[in-house]
């Protein structure tokens, strides 16, 4: 599953917009008469130059293709890394320089 990561350096901070392509199924939705099993991100970690700045617990109520925007102190050239795990044991990550 791909991650769109857009870190932008601005005045001593890095503004980070990211979108993770993920169905975020709640396990309550029916498709063709059958329940679609839960399939959602459970946690996400954001690091700058290898140091974790945020760790999030994510529930099934986050919209499909989760979008997040936040900021962290940093400068142009710093490398932002986002990684996640989902309830099916799958994971993904992406890195980009601000």
């Amino acid at each position, binding site marked *: 599953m*791909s991650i*769109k990561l*857009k870190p932008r350096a601005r005045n001593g901070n890095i503004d980070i*917009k*990211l*979108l993770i*392509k993920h169905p975020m199924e709640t396990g309550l939705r029916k498709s063709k008469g059958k329940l679609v099993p839960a399939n959602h991100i459970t946690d996400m970690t954001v690091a700058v130059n290898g140091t974790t700045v945020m760790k999030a617990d994510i529930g099934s109520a986050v919209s*499909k*293709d989760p*979008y997040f*925007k936040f900021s962290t102190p940093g400068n142009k050239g710093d490398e932002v890394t986002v990684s996640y795990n989902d309830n099916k044991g799958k994971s993904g990550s992406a890195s980009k320089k601000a």
Partner: protein
Amino acid sequence: MKKLTTLFLGLSVAVGFTNANIDPQADQDAFINYFKKANPNVALEDYSVGAYALDEINRGQFEDILSGITPYEDAVEKGGEEFADLGLGKCAALADPAAARVKHPYFDEVQGKVITLEMTIAKCYNEVTGKKIAKNKGRIARLSAWISDQAAGEKINVKVESDAAKAAYQKGKATFYAKRGEFNLSCADCHVYNHGKKARADVLSPALGHTTHLPMYRAKWGGLGTLHRRYGGCMKNMRAKPYKSHGEEFANLEFYQARMNNGFEITADRYRK
């Protein structure tokens, strides 16, 4: 009464009905004036965002979505990759994607009918791959969205010049104003005469500006879809049997609607409810 009507129609045919009375510019001027009068505080270019121009609460959410990473950004990028991978630029009609967007819909004098961008894409796809492409969503919508993105900022400029083109335009206009279906509603009933009002929880969008942001992403679809997809869905909602996508009725309707938007900028902001 019926005899009189038949006599009148007969006379019209006998005289040789010309298209001299069809004046798209006069139609557009009247159209714009109608909406200006109805909403004196809405700037003309704002009609490009449709219902959001008249609905502050939802406009905030619309702008929120646009300021983030839009749910369709990925699909549009994919459309660009598919365009390149399939080599659709080989078709003369799509060699210049931005120009292709601005050109469509147009009246093809040789084929004697209105051609929409999706119809050209479908034709090119078939020539290049030998396969048929689904008409309303998926790949065709991605390709159309990417092609349309290339023309963002350019002005809509639909030409209605020949007699045959005017006749098609007039048919499209007639479709727009004709009542149909179980509810006996025309496009105009909601999108002109009752625009800005609510149908349950939805604000009825004004028809002015309808074709600036095609193809659109609808949150309800969770994906991109073409104008004909929207037309078909709406007709079904109105309990009317929908016309065929890429067929004459929808092509003419798109032709009329697009002509009403001449001068509006094509936008890449495709998000709708």
